[in-house]
């Protein structure tokens, strides 16, 4: 019995002493990766370059060296090497094949290469006859994974005759040499064993073991020569100089990077004016919490631009994101969410989910990048992963010399130019002309300095004229001087040019016991917002320990970061608070104050009494105030598995996250905030002002801590005695996420040296009494404030999320024929405030199986087995979740709760129990396996008849009986495999699952010199909500001695039901010089989780409700890569990568007609989720009124709800169905270059057309409004009327075909050139490698619309945002 040692990266059973290690270090000459060569070489076997020189070294040690340098695994038995001869040789950058040929020359053994493994076998004796010489030993390689795709480590792979046996390594891979014809058994605790007959030419086996709990007969065998799927696993070879954004762009079909801009508006902060704190800036979350009754409505209004009449938008200051530097957002197949926005994918780096998309994450530190699209995998990561995951794994420690790499990226982004004309914003002349007409046509306001507040300077001048407070001459002079002012140039002072630098230093090394990688990073970024900056210092450490003779495996990943950021003032052109004629600085460079929210005359009055100036200057405030955020983060994940005793393995995973945040809002005493606040708390007396708040700097500091941990642990025991085999496993875990933010005081009169504030004065005798402030100076006005409210700490918030889970499994096998197994999984969640302290979600399964005929019965039937079992799932009974905000009421010294939404209960005590009997028959010598089962399924709380929405549980209980079946086939020597299953989900929905794979190019009958690769795949995947929940629960169960991940999933709602069809064809032409990969997919997700909210009846008290819906996400991904030229000196590759994707809404509620923009884009059954509806525009009539064609095609200016509801027509989609990139890559000697064009095709966008009314519309098109008869021939902008913004007139003007236009564009996303330092130079510099690249981003674009508007910055309402800045950068990368 030959024992087979497996040498395979990254595990290594071969023991190398530290002495040997040192000697190897000396012996090895420096390793030079000939990068130029590698860039030009495809990933073909035996092309790695090897350099070493040895003198009289054993073959074994030479093989170790080869293994370390090539990364190939080596398989041999020790006996084989006994009689080998020592080697003396010297190699410098030799290909592997040449090295091996030299080393094995004249040896009694020979080798062959199978899938990156060097298999050493006895050299066949020359005098043997041909027949005997035929190698009877077959080397089988493969990978074992669970049905969910997670690799199984330590799975047993053995020949049934006992001739050989191995376990899988850390990657789940195995290599075994067994006689042809023997049966291989692959088994693993908690999984069904799988057997396969060994044949020659099996290729690589990819074995997915069926987990015991799943009823699907999902063992799926596929034989593929190449496992690396370029469409999922990104090829990083020779791409270390790129960043994450570049590597994703054009490597993964269907994945496109979308430029996100200002108009995909997200609110960064919202300022609220209140008498207590004046302008208080909050995050949107804080805002919604602080104003639970209407906070969300205010945010929605600002985002949509539609303000309800009751809302006064002037009392808010809203800031939107304008970060152009991180403008790329990955999007897979067009995100499959109803929200319809470019919701990015989840980025997971070393198992830690990250916020945002780090486009400039350097690839030099990355080991692998994987794109996860499989719904089965996505469901485990919770709702955030619904649009796909990008899994990045940083470099792991490697045995061998310590490698040090350094890279630096430098960026320069000039501030985007503020240009009123290009942004379609009105000029001074436009505004003044408009205000004047409005004044003539409508209300001629009068002005009273005492109580006319919130009036613009222009309106004030006109009012003063009507009030005879100024003469006509005086008015004319002032009006003319206003007309000469323009603040465009000065507004550019609110932005800055941005310089960024990112440094990264990585150190990688290790021995066979300990491997490590350390990556340190420093980045310093200034954004385009004035004074905005961000400094990050980070450390990423990966440690792998193999101790106790490899019985204890520990991997520990640590991420530490310190971030300090300062929020800058970001200009939002469509939401500027000042008029175009309001300057920031006067001719002497002094700040010019804006008194629009008060009035300058009133300001003079209060200043004469002793108050401070109440005026505002944006530039002064942006320069003086300082809002910083400091955070310290530590994330750690420890995984270990320990073989305590033979057969007993303990595994555990500990995830820990700690984050400390300090947010400082600092207001300088000269800022408008400080001045206004002090004034607010100033009480006027005959002899002066009594200020209750000390005048000085103000600091509002809040600290918060986020602690998260997740511990999971399990024991697995495996014992065989005689014919009995026992497998037991138990596991459990707990998770907790806690957020603490203590209440904080605001420090007034803040002294930065002592860190203290000055006291607040309180009124006497009653300290809680109100005072009247300066408004008392104005007749008919009044305002009260309460100084005592300033001395109450506010902002306290604590949140906790916890769960506990248990699982256990047991299996008993007798004589390998009779099996009894059971499994139990349970998750406990807190149910605070309920009678029971926690709720329990339970899953269990008991199964007995007998293999009736183990040996072939006749020439057709191989084996027969019968199985019976029970599968049960129990949901907890949770109450309806009313989403309520609880908030502090400072004045009332208590807390209030306000409900503002509710979601239906999805877990209300339902249960499903399936009792089944199955017969499994193996046919045709392992070619077919047929399984037929009889199932009796009892379901409580849900009905078997078509009630798919599961939003409410019924009391009903139903029993269904059905026959399930499954057929597996493995034909054409493993080139064709298929599996089809018919089953019912635990909810009682019929399901068909299936896969099909056919490798046509390898077929005997396939002869083509042209086509080198031809694969066809097919897939039908059905995952019901309960099965999705089951998959999520499965992450708590240890798989292969370790846990695949540890994220805190929530188990309170059901994941959506998924139905997925996919077909894929891969064609390689001329030795894969041209590769075409086309995939059609069609995925339907249904449920309330992938939900849309539809308007609710107002009498329900809610503005929206959650409805059951489903969405069909379908399209084609295509990926065409052409290596046009490929020589050692020069190569030119073009990749066309794109997708056609549509999201179609199905069974959504019919929207009721309302004359709102929301109705024009409401989800409609059978239409794209981003559909836009518009009226057929018929121009203006001769009075300047908008006209449309009604449903009969008649021109009409009569606008009423009946006409409008029937006249809307489909106008296109707002999200482009065609998206992709066109990437050119060139390499010439040591130079390389890359140009990426992205395109977006097939969408439309709106252009904002104002509807002139009393208020100035923020658009330069007001210049072209209808003024006199005849104008209708030239303009579409209606005449000024007294109709308000919510009128039919405004609705029609804003939503007609004349404003809908093509949003097609092609963007030159990036141009890069790079240069690798020549070897000689590098050597002279005592370096390993060095390269430099220069990049330019967003360099040019071509649009189809005639206004040259960049569709990416045009908002859904047609308003333009700030242009996307061009970015220039430079990177250096040095290997030490």
């Amino acid at each position, binding site marked *: 019995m030959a024992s087979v040692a497996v040498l395979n990266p990254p595990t290594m059973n071969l023991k190398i002493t530290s002495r040997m290690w040192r000697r190897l270090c000396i012996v090895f000459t420096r390793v030079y990766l000939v990068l130029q060569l590698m860039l030009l070489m495809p990933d073909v076997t035996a092309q790695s370059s090897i350099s070493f020189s040895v003198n009289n070294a054993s073959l074994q040690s030479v093989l170790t060296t080869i293994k370390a340098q090539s990364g190939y695994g080596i398989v041999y038995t020790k006996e084989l090497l006994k009689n080998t001869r020592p080697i003396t040789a010297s190699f410098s950058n030799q290909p592997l094949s040449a090295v091996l040929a030299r080393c094995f020359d004249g040896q009694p053994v020979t080798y062959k290469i199978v899938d990156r493994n060097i298999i050493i076998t006895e050299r066949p004796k020359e005098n043997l006859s041909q027949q005997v010489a035929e190698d009877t030993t077959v080397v089988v390689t493969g990978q074992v994974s669970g049905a969910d795709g997670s690799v199984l480590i330590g799975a047993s792979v053995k020949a049934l005759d006992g001739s050989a046996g191995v376990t899988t390594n850390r990657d789940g891979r195995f290599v075994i040499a067994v006689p042809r014809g023997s049966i291989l058994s692959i088994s693993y605790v908690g999984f069904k064993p799988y057997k396969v007959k060994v044949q020659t030419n099996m290729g690589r086996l990819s074995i997915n073991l069926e987990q015991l709990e799943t009823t699907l007969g999902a063992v799926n065998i596929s034989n593929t020569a190449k496992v690396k799927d370029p469409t999922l696993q990104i090829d990083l070879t020779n791409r270390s100089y790129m960043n994450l954004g570049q590597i994703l762009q054009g490597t993964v079909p269907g994945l496109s990077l979308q430029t996100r801009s200002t108009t995909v508006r997200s609110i960064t902060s919202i300022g609220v004016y209140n008498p207590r704190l004046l302008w208080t800036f909050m995050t949107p979350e804080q805002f919604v919490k602080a104003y639970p009754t209407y906070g969300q409505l205010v945010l929605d209004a600002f985002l949509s631009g539609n303000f309800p009449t009751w809302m006064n938008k002037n009392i808010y200051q809203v800031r939107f994101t304008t970060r152009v530097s991180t403008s790329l957002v990955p999007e897979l197949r067009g995100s499959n969410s109803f929200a319809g926005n470019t919701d990015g994918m989840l980025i997971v780096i070393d198992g830690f989910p990250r916020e945002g998309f780090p486009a400039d994450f350097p690839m030099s530190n990355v080991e692998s990048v994987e794109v996860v699209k499989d719904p089965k995998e996505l469901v485990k990561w919770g709702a955030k992963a619904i649009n796909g995951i990008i899994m990045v794994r940083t470099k792991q420690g490697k045995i061998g010399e310590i490698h040090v790499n350094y890279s630096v990226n430098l960026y320069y982004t000039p501030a985007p130019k503020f240009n009123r004309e290009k942004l379609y914003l009105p000029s001074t002349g436009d505004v003044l002309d408009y205000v004047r007409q409005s004044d003539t046509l409508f209300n001629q306001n009068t002005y009273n300095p005492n109580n006319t507040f919130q009036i613009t300077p222009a309106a004030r001048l006109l009012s003063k004229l009507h009030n005879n407070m100024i003469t006509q001459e005086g008015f004319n002079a002032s009006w003319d001087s206003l007309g000469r002012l323009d603040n465009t140039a000065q507004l550019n002072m609110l932005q800055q040019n941005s310089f960024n630098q990112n440094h990264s230093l990585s150190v990688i090394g290790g021995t066979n016991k300990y491997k490590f990688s350390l990556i340190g990073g420093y980045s310093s970024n200034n954004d385009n917002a004035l004074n905005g900056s961000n400094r990050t210092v980070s450390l990423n450490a990966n440690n792998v320990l193999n101790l106790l003779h490899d019985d204890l495996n520990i991997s520990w990943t640590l991420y530490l970061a310190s971030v300090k950021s300062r929020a800058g003032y970001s200009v939002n052109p469509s939401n500027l608070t000042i008029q175009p004629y309001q300057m920031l600085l006067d001719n002497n460079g002094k700040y010019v104050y804006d008194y629009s929210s008060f009035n300058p005359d009133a300001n003079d009055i209060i200043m004469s009494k002793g108050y401070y100036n109440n005026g505002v200057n944006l530039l002064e405030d942006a320069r003086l105030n300082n809002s910083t955020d400091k955070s310290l983060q530590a994330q750690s994940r420890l995984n270990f598995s320990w073989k305590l005793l033979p057969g007993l393995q303990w595994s555990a995973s500990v995830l820990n996250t700690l984050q400390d945040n300090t947010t400082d809002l600092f207001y300088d005493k000269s800022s408008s905030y400080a001045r206004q606040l002090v004034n607010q708390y100033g009480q006027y007396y005959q002899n002066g002002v009594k200020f209750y708040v000390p005048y000085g700097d103000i600091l509002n500091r809040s600290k918060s801590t986020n602690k998260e941990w997740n511990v999971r642990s399990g024991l697995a025991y495996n014992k065989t005695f005689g014919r009995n085999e026992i497998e037991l496993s138990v596991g459990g875990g707990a998770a907790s996420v806690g957020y603490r933010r203590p209440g904080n005081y605001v420090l007034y009169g803040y002294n930065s040296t002592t860190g203290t504030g000055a006291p607040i004065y309180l009124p006497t005798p009653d300290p809680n009494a109100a005072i009247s402030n300066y408004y008392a100076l104005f007749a008919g006005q009044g305002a009260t404030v309460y100084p005592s409210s300033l001395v109450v700490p506010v902002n306290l918030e604590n949140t*906790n999320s916890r769960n506990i889970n248990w699982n256990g499994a047991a299996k008993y096998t007798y004589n390998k024929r009779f099996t009894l197994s059971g499994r139990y999984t349970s998750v406990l969640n807190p149910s605070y405030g309920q009678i029971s302290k926690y709720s329990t979600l339970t899953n269990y399964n008991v199964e007995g199986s007998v293999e009736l005929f183990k040996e072939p019965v006749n020439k057709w039937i191989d084996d027969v087995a019968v199985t019976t079992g029970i599968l049960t799932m129990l949901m907890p009974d949770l109450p309806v979740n009313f989403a309520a905000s609880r908030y502090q009421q400072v004045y009332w010294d208590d807390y209030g709760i306000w409900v503002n939404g509710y979601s239906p209960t999805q877990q209300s005590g339902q249960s499903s129990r399936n009792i089944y009997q199955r017969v499994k028959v193996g046919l045709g010598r392992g070619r077919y396996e047929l399984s037929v089962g009889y199932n009796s399924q009892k379901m409580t709380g849900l009905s078997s008849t078509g009630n798919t929405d599961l939003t409410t549980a019924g009391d009903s209980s139903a029993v269904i009986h059905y026959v399930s079946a499954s057929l597996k086939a493995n034909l054409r020597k493993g080139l064709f495999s298929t599996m089809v299953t018919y089953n019912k989900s635990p909810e009682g929905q019929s399901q068909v699952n299936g896969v099909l794979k056919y490798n046509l190019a390898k077929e005997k009958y396939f002869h083509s010199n042209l086509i080198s690769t031809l694969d066809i795949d097919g897939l039908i995947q059905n995952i019901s909500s309960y099965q999705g929940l089951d998959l999520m629960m499965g992450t708590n169960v240890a798989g292969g001695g370790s846990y695949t991940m540890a994220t805190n999933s929530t188990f309170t709602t059901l994941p959506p039901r998924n139905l997925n069809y996919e077909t894929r064809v891969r064609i390689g032409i001329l030795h894969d010089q041209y590769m075409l990969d086309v995939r059609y997919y069609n995925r339907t997700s249904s449920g309330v989780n992938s939900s849309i909210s539809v308007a609710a009846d107002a009498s329900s008290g809610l503005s929206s409700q959650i409805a059951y819906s489903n969405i069909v996400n379908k399209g084609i991904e295509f990926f065409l890569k052409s290596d046009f030229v490929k020589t050692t000196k020069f190569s030119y590759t073009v990749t066309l990568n794109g997708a056609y994707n549509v999201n179609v809404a199905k069974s959504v509620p019919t929207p009721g007609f309302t004359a709102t923009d929301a109705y024009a884009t409401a989800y409609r059954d059978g239409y794209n989720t981003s559909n836009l509806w518009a009226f057929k525009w018929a121009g203006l009539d001769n009075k300047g009124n908008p006209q449309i064609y009604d449903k009969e095609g008649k021109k009409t200016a009569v606008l009423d709800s009946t006409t409008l509801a029937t006249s809307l027509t489909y106008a296109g989609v707002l999200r482009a169905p065609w998206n992709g990139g066109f990437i050119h890559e060139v390499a010439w000697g040591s130079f390389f270059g890359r140009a990426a064009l992205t395109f977006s095709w097939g969408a439309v966008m709106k252009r904002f057309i104002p509807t002139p009314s009393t208020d100035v519309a923020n658009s330069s098109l007001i210049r072209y409004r209808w003024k006199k008869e005849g104008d209708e021939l030239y303009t579409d902008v209606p005449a000024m009327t007294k109709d*308000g913004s919510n009128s039919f007139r405004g609705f029609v003007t804003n939503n007609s075909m004349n404003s809908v236009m093509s949003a097609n564009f092609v963007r030159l996303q990036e141009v890069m050139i790079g240069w690798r330092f020549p070897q000689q130079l590098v050597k002279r510099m005592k370096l390993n490698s060095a390269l430099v690249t220069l990049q330019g981003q967003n360099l040019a674009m071509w649009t189809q619309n005639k206004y040259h508007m960049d569709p990416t910055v045009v908002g859904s309402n047609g308003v333009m945002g700030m242009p996307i800045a061009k970015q220039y950068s430079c990177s250096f990368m040095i290997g030490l």
Partner: protein
Amino acid sequence: MAMNKMICFLLMVIVFTGCEKFLDVNPSTQSVNPTTIADFQEMLNSDSLAIGNYMLSDLMSDDVRLPDVELSGQDNFYTRTYLWSNVIWNPADEDYMYSSSYSRILQMNIIMNRVGSAPQDSVNTVENRSNVISQALIQRSYYYLQLANIYGAGYNSATAATDLAVPLVLSPDASAKPSRATVKEVYDKVITDLRQAVNNPYLAGMGRNIIHPGKAAGYALLSRAYLYKAAYDSALLYADSSLALASSLMDISSDYSGPTQLIDLRTNPEILMAKVAYERNFYSLVNYSFQISSSLYSLLSYYDGRYNTRLNGYYYRTSTYNGATTLFSDFSVSVPEVMLTKAECLARKGDAAGAVTLVNTLAANRIRSYEEVTTSNADTALSYVLNERRRELFVHGGLRTFDLKRFNVNTNTQVTLTRQQDDSTVIATLPPLSGRYVMPFTQTVLANNSNMVQNVRQ
């Protein structure tokens, strides 16, 4: 073996009690799913319950006047309501009166729906539970009474069973799409609920603060509902019950500056249940406040505290709240209203002296150097009472409009209202019992509930 079993059992106990302790955490201090009595108490704490805005229904009454300059601006629902136009709402307008009333009713419905299944804890005592129920019922009744009077016809016993009011939503359901209940159904429910609320022996006369209603507020609303039904005996009875619990008045005849925000009412003894409005949008549209009508103006003397604190000449006074110029109105359920209800009932029953005494008591706290009125004639007494009622309850959550509606039910007290331009040209007329007394629903309300029937205005 027994030992092993024992150890196993102990281990299980430790593990499970540990679990219970570990999982027994409050998920969030800021985001909750209200289930406990303590949660319901905090729901009733919310000062949003005291903030609502029915100023639009005040604009419909004869207490208000918009000068030409305010009518010449943007065409909007304020001006159209004032002019009793057939169309009030622009197609995309949201009716804040309707949606905010129902969002408050939802809070109460959740409490009523869940209070029975609240877990037993230290806060869940009979006293606390019944007080939560009573307060929720009083708050809900308040909103239904407002809604019935704004969107339904005045209570007419002959037609109340067929006149449509608003949907009577009594439990939370986002997708129910209820039809409109009749005026009678709403009133019946309001009276039943209020009676249940005040029959609670634990409910104190006054709430913990002005946001929380006590028994006095419950009785006050009962007397208001019966007064609107013209059931004067019952109205009198409940007004008496209310006054027995709370009858203090605040002297505002001099040296009183008037409230500008809800918290300013904190120490006002007249407030039984605070309700205030912050109307900002009207001011931002026209840069003005509205005026009071000359008929109301003529009733207010220069020495009247209500003139000094609520008006600035003809204009309704503005104040500054949240940085915006605001029309603040206090329309709380209060002692003066109950006194006036009692006085009206007494006068209508012929007790002139009783009625006049109440009027004098109230006016003495309002008007500087007040000279008491006397009469033995019940009709004269009634006119004193109604004049005082107008002085006291103008811009008071629509009460004057509701009064006009109930006066119109009786043919003897019907009035025809007109709107005049600055030069006295009549631009609008509102005859008694006109359909234009009833507020229409917005397009959004109709679009989202197919069972809603629009109010016809012509």
